[in-house]
């Protein structure tokens, strides 16, 4: 079931478009903002609300990078793996993450705190390597700084 708040936000988003289906991406983002990921149930609730089929909504949900169809951690850590960050030491940062948290990119820490994901250029190339945790952007990241940055997210 969509909550009242979610419904209200969705109604608000739909005001911007001439048809309901255009709200599909907004709907996925609205629901994900509070539940962190899109379960099959959420997917069907959204589909029903927008008058679409579950398959239709799923084909959208699985296309976009920022929609998660599997459970994720309490925080999302995105590590830029694009060219400027690669030149400036992205691989050392990635190696540090693997060492400190014993996980690969794409996985969640055992305590459910963080999910680490690679991401395309964050538009912060002049301060490469860059990473983003939730909505906070970090530049000039070094392996030494990784743990200090990550510590802030409980």
């Amino acid at each position, binding site marked *: 079931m969509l909550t009242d708040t979610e419904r209200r936000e969705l109604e608000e988003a739909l005001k*911007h478009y001439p048809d309901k289906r255009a709200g599909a991406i*907004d709907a996925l983002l609205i629901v994900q903002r509070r539940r962190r990921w899109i379960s099959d149930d959420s997917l069907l609730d959204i589909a029903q609300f927008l008058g679409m089929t579950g398959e239709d909504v799923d084909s959208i949900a699985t296309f*976009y*990078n920022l929609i998660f169809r599997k459970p994720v951690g309490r925080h999302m850590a995105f590590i830029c*793996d694009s*060219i400027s960050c690669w030149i400036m030491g992205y691989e050392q940062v990635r190696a540090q993450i693997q060492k400190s948290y014993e996980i690969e990119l794409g996985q969640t820490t055992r305590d459910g705190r963080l999910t680490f994901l690679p991401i*395309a250029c964050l538009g912060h190339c002049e301060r490469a390597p860059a990473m983003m945790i939730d909505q906070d*952007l970090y530049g000039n990241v070094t392996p030494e700084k990784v743990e200090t940055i990550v510590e802030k997210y409980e």
Partner: protein
Amino acid sequence: MERPLTQYIHPDGTPRLLGEYVKAGGYRSLHTLAAGIAPQDLQRLVAEAGLRGRGGAGFPTASKWSFVPMGSDAPKPKYIVANADEMEPGTFKDRVLLEGEPHGLVESMIIAGYALEAEVGFIFLRGEYHRSAERLTQAIAEAYAEGYLGKPLPGTTFCFDLHLHASAGRYICGEETALLNALEGKRAIPRAKPPYPQTVGLWGQPTIVQNVETLYNLPQIVNHGSAWYHGLSRSKDGGTKIYGISGRVTHPGWWELPLGTTARELLEQHAGGMFNGVSFRGLLPGGASTAFLTQEHLDLPMDYSSIPPQVGRLGTGTMIVLDDQTCPVGFVLNLEKFFARESCGWCTPCREGLPWVARILESFEEGLATDDDLALLEMHAKVLGPGHTFCALAPGAMAPLQSALKYFRDDFERHISLGRCPWSNKPTQLRVLV
């Protein structure tokens, strides 16, 4: 040197809100519109100014506009879409504008709307640009409260509505027709052209998709005229450009400079030259989908007409520098992994070809490549080049590869003869997962 696009942006990156923006001359262009300039005259002004699109292709903005049906018989509504999807690796110019001067985009879109008699605008914003989203939301609310949006401009019947759409990621969303599908809530797969969006775009209505930086030029042109605008530039295309440099240079960053500034000046004067101890080998002039320029090209003016097409193109104007301690094969591998991951999968050559290219480059880095692999790369660079795929993503992906094969062939060959990467003190790159 005049910097009309960025002169008032606070050095610390905090946004200028309504009061401050208006005090500095913001929204002044709306008086010109309210005074009754005809939309066609506004279009002519933009044509005279010689404004060319800053989103990568450098298409003349006024010619693009000329295909939009005008007058009372034109279909309604018509749409203006700001392409704020900035996801091209190495490109970070639109973010500077969106975060530092959010009202600039609102004002620019009202002007574009007026010139094309389009009553609705969408800002298609990259989902990761949270700070831009926050500031644009506030700027739009302020503009509505002030009556710039949602009410007829004083003395006219023109009324403009503006909406912010946050995207959910995928590079292909930046391609203009894929963007329209994404805005309609569908998978972002490019549409066949013709019909062009100018006549059949968003929800089948006439639509103009324009890059953020392109749009920011409009208030300047309206306020100061086309002669002034031409005077800003060192080239025959008008205006300034937000250039940027990343990689191992002393001061990576961005600068608004006359269009036509040379790559040497950018590199040596503005970016302070290369880092201590490394030397220059080449650069991509504007993002991951442009071809390498080398030492011999450094004195070329960086604009839309001075780089010969057989050499390359300016792209977004944000440069990525390759130094002598970075492996050119690894560099291209990183780019091709990005393109392979971001292919929308619609057409087979791109969906199958890009991962193949990435795997071949990986075999070079691992020391497993043979001369046949070099030939395979050449073959892909041709068959995934212009004209063979549904959209420009795959040809864009081939531009750095093809030019790397031309300028850094020795390095590819050394990988084969040594049986390893000559820069192999670096950890090998992640395996491609596509």
